[in-house]
C-alpha cells in the first residue's frame, strides 16, 4: 500500500472513529438537531429507500446511533461519577441525603465497576432500619444481587433475587433488568421480557436491556422511540415533583441499545468493514470483549484494529494488544499517530477497574504541546476523556479549557454536547466548586437538546447547594 492510500485510509478511519459522520450539515447550520430527531428522520426515509440509497441511509443511521451511544456513555459515566461525589460530600457535611441515598450510591458504584463499594452501600441501605417502600427495597435487593454476582458470589446473589416478592421477581421488571445487565439466565429473561402487545412504562428499560443482552435488536427502534418521547417531556414535571436522582443505569441501557442499533443497521450492508466495525464496537462497549475479539480479529482497517487492540487489552491479553497497536503505529501516518494513541488509551481505559494511563505510557505532554490549530476540539475531548477516566480531573480541565470556544458557549454546534458534558463534569469532579455555576450552565445547554442531561443538572445543583449552605450571600447592583 503506498503512502497516499494509507493516508486516505487514515483519514477515513479518523472520520469513522471520531464518530463525526456529518449528517445534514445544512441542518446543523440552521440549528443543532439532536441525534434522536435525526434518527427519526432517517428511519422515515428508510421505509421508502431502495438500492444504494438504502445502503447509504443504513450506514448513516448506524453512524447516528453510534454517536448517540457515545453521548449516552459519557452521560452515564459522568452521572455516576458526580453521583458518588455528591454522596461523599453529603457525608462529609453530615447532611442526610435521604432514605434512598444508599441505593443510588450503590447503583453509581456498580456502574463505575466498584462492585465491592456497591455491595457495602446497598447492604447498609437495606439494613438501615429506615422505613422503605416495597418498591425501593426491591430495587435495593436486585442491585445488591447484581453487585454480588459481579464479584462471583452467585449464591448470595440468588438469595437476594429470590427474596424479591414473586410477582416482581417473575415479571419483566427490576429483577429481570439487573439479571440482563450481568448476563444471568438470559434464556428465561427472553421469555419474561418478550415485547408483545403494548408495553407499559415500567417495563420499557428492562425490556430494552434484555433485548440487547439476548441479541434481539429488531424491536429496539420502537421501544427507544417511546423512551425518547418520554425523555423529551421530562421537563414538564410539576414544581412539587421529586428531584431526579442519580440512577445512571437507564443511561447505560440507552447507550447499549444505541450501540446495538449501530450494529443492527449494518447487518445487511455490503460494506463488510463497517459491519464488522459496528458489531465489534457493540460487543466492546457492552463488555463482551471475547466476542469483540472474535468479530474483529483479522481486521485490516485501523478503526477496527483499534477496537481489537482495546478488546485484547480488556481480556487481559495485553501483550497481544500492544502487538496490534504496534501494527497500527507502523501503518498509520505520523500526522495522526498521537490521535490514535489517545483513542487507543480511551478504549483501553473504558474497561472497568483499569488504569491504563499508568500502564500505557502515552505521551500526553507531546500531544498537548501540539499547535492548537492542528488539533480538533474532538481530539482534545478524547484526550480529556482519558484524563477524566483516570481521575485526573485538573488535567482534563486544562485540556478542555484550551479547546473551549467561549464566544458561543451555549451553541451546541460550536461546542458539541459531549464536550460540554465532559467539561462540566470535569469542573465538578475537580471540586472546582467556585465554578459550579459554569458546570450547571453547560449541562443546562446540553439538556435543551438531551433531556437526560437533567440528572447532571440536578446533581450538580445539589452539590452547589450543599457547599453553600449557611452562606448568606451578597448582592450588588450595578450599571
Amino acid at each position: 500500500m503506498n503512502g497516499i492510500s494509507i493516508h486516505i485510509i487514515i483519514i477515513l478511519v479518523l472520520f469513522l472513529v471520531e464518530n463525526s459522520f456529518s449528517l445534514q450539515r445544512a441542518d446543523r447550520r440552521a440549528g443543532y438537531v439532536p441525534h434522536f430527531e435525526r434518527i427519526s428522520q432517517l428511519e422515515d426515509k428508510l421505509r421508502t429507500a431502495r438500492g444504494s440509497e438504502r445502503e447509504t441511509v443504513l450506514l448513516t443511521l448506524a453512524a447516528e446511533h453510534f454517536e448517540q451511544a457515545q453521548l449516552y456513555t459519557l452521560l452515564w459515566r459522568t452521572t455516576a461519577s458526580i453521583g458518588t461525589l455528591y454522596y461523599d460530600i453529603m457525608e462529609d457535611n453530615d447532611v442526610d441525603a435521604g432514605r434512598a441515598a444508599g441505593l443510588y450510591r450503590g447503583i453509581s458504584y456498580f456502574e463505575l465497576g466498584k462492585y465491592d463499594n456497591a455491595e457495602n452501600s446497598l447492604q447498609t441501605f437495606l439494613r438501615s432500619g429506615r422505613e422503605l417502600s416495597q418498591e425501593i427495597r426491591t430495587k435495593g435487593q436486585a442491585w445488591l444481587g447484581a453487585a454480588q454476582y459481579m464479584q462471583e458470589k452467585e449464591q448470595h446473589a440468588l438469595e437476594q433475587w429470590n427474596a424479591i416478592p414473586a410477582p416482581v421477581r417473575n415479571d419483566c421488571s427490576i429483577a429481570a433488568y439487573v439479571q440482563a445487565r450481568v448476563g444471568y439466565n438470559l434464556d428465561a429473561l427472553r421469555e419474561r421480557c418478550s415485547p408483545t402487545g403494548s408495553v407499559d412504562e415500567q417495563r420499557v428499560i428492562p425490556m430494552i436491556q434484555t433485548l440487547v443482552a439476548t441479541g434481539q435488536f429488531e424491536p429496539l427502534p420502537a421501544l427507544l422511540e417511546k423512551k425518547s418521547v418520554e425523555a423529551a417531556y421530562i421537563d414538564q414535571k410539576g414544581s412539587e415533583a421529586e428531584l431526579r436522582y442519580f440512577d445512571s443505569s437507564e443511561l447505560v441501557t440507552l447507550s447499549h441499545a444505541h450501540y446495538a442499533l449501530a450494529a443492527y443497521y449494518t447487518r445487511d450492508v455490503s460494506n463488510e468493514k463497517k459491519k464488522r466495525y459496528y458489531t465489534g464496537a457493540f460487543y466492546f462497549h457492552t463488555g463482551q470483549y471475547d466476542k469483540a475479539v472474535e468479530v474483529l480479529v483479522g481486521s485490516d482497517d485501523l478503526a477496527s484494529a483499534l477496537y481489537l487492540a482495546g478488546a485484547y487489552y480488556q481480556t487481559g491479553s495485553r501483550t497481544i494488544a500492544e502487538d496490534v497497536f504496534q501494527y497500527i503505529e507502523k501503518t498509520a501516518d505520523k500526522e495522526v499517530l498521537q490521535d490514535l494513541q489517545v483513542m487507543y488509551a480511551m478504549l483501553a481505559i473504558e474497561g472497568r477497574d483499569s488504569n491504563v494511563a499508568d500502564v500505557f505510557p502515552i505521551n500526553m505532554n507531546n500531544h498537548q504541546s501540539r499547535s492548537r490549530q492542528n488539533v480538533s476540539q474532538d481530539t482534545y475531548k478524547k484526550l480529556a476523556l482519558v484524563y477524566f477516566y483516570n481521575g485526573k480531573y485538573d488535567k482534563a480541565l486544562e485540556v478542555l479549557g484550551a479547546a473551549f470556544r467561549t464566544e458561543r458557549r451555549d451553541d451546541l454546534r460550536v461546542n458539541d454536547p459531549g464536550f460540554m458534558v465532559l467539561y462540566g463534569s470535569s469542573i465538578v469532579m475537580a471540586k472546582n466548586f467556585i465554578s459550579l455555576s459554569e458546570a450547571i450552565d453547560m449541562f443546562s445547554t446540553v439538556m435543551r437538546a438531551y433531556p437526560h442531561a437533567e440528572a447532571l443538572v440536578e446533581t450538580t445543583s445539589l452539590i452547589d447547594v450543599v457547599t453553600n449552605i449557611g452562606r448568606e450571600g451578597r448582592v450588588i447592583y450595578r450599571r
Partner: protein
Amino acid sequence: MKINHIIKVFIFGVLISGYASGQVQQGGILTYVESEFPRAYDPITATDDIVNVRMTTMMYEGLFGYDIDREIRSRLADSYTVGRDNKELTVRMKRGKRWADGREVTARDVAKTIEAIWASDNLQEQRIISDIEEVRVEDDYTLTFLYQTPLPEEVMLRKLTFKLVPAHKINNLPLTRQSELARSPVGSGFYQMVRRGPTDITLRANQHFRQRDGGNMGPYIDEVRMYVQTDVGTQIEFLLNQQVDVMVEIPPPAIARLRAAGFQIKPYESLAYHFIAFNFNHSILRDQKVRQAMTYGFNRENALDRIYQNQGTLISGPFPPASAFYVRDRDAEPFPYDPAEAIRLLSQAGFNERASDGTRINNNGDRLSFTLVVPRHEGDDYTPRVTAQFISDMRRIGISIDLQELEFERWIQRVKYEHNFDLAFAQVVFDEAGNVAPMFLSTNNKPGAENFISYNNPEADELIKRFRETASPSERINLNRRLHRLLREDCPYIFLWSLNKNAAANQKVRNFMTRVTPFSFFDYVNEWYIREDW
C-alpha cells in the same frame, strides 16, 4: 463545651500544578483596567460597588474566609471553640499578624469592625452579622461571640467572614466615604495601596503579610496596578497593546479578536442579570396585570439579539440560569413577546381608553405613564439602546415612559435609599450563594436595603423563611424553585437577561484561568504569578 476545634490546615493543593512544573515565579507587576475608581477604599462604606469589592478583596481579610473549594478556612483566626448550646463561639486569633502600617491585628480590631458595620448604612453586612448578639473581647487575641439562636458550627464561622478594619484608624463613627480609612486604606491582606494617581492606583505586596502563613499564602506578584479607562474600546486597545494584563469583563464581540491575538479568555460567571424593577409604592404598578402586561410587551428576545448579539440567555425569574434554583421546566419559560396579550391584560386592569398622545387611561383618568431611572455611564453603548427599545415597545401598547438617566451613585440614592422611582433599570450580581431573598423579603425594605421596590408577598416570605430553616439540599432546591415560579408569575421585576461574562488576560499571567471568582474576582490573586519570560 466542645473543645479544640483545630482549624483545618490549608492544603496547598491548589498550587500543585504551579509547583510541580517548577514554573512559579516571584515578583513582577500585574496591571488591570476598570471603568472607574472605587467609590471608597475600605470594606464597609462601599460594598455596593463592584470596583470596590474587587480592590478591597486584595487589601483586607477577615477572621475566616473561603478557599477555592468553598470550604471555610481560617484567615486571621487561629482556632476556635464552640459553646455547648451552639450559641457561643470563642475565637483565638493568630499572633503577629500586622496591618499594612505595622501595627498588630488584635481582638479590639474585630470588635471595632463590628461596631463600624452597625454604625454604617451597610445593611448587607449588617444582615450577615445580625445573628451576633454580643462580642466580648477576652484579651488581645481572644474573642467570644454570642449568637441569638443556636447555629451549626459552620454557619457560626460563616458569619465571621466580614473583612476587618484597623481600630486605630477609626476616629469617628459612622465611617463614611470621607473618612480617612475610606480614602487611605490600611488592611491586613495581600496588598496595600501605595499610590493613587489621576488615572491609576498602585498596590504593593503587604510586607507584613507572612508568607505561607497557616492557611493563607502571601502573593507571588509584587505589585498590582489598576488603570481607569471609561471607554471599553480603549480598554481593549490597552490589552492588545500590552498596556494592561487583565480586563475583568470583555464585551462579547471582542472575544474572537482577543483570542486570535493569543489572550486567555476565561468565562467566569453567569450569576448576574439585568432587570427593570417596579416600585410597589406606585398604586398602578401594584396591579399584577399591569406588570405582566409590560413584561409581555417588551420584546426582550429582539433586544438581546440585536444589542448583545445574543450573547446571553433570557431569564424567567429571580435566579440566573446558572443557579441551582433556576427552573427549566417548559411551563416556566420566560414570558414571550406578546403585545396582544399585553393589551388584553391592560384592558382587564381597566386601561381601556387612550389619551390623545396614545397613552392608555382608566375610568379615573389615571394614565399609564411612568418614569424609568437608568444609571448612566460614559462609554456604555448598550444601555441607551435597551432603554430606547423598551420605550418604543411600551409606546406600542399604550404606555408612556419618561427616561431619567442618572449617575450611578445618584441612581443608588434615588432607587435604594429614597425609593423615588416608578421603574428602575440595572443589573444585579450575586456571589456564589446566589441568595435572592434580600431582594424580595418584605421586611427588608428599609432605605438602603435590597428590597427597594417594597415588595410584600406573604407567600414569597414564607418560602424564604422555610428555605432558611431547612438544611436539606433537595428541599432547599424545591423551595427556591417555587419562589422562582412565584416571582416569574408575579413579575416584581421585568426579568431581562443574563449575559455571558468573560475575562481576558495576557498569557504571562499564570494560574488566571483556574483562579477567578465570579464575584470578587481577585480572591485568589495570591496564587497568580507572572511569567516575565513568556
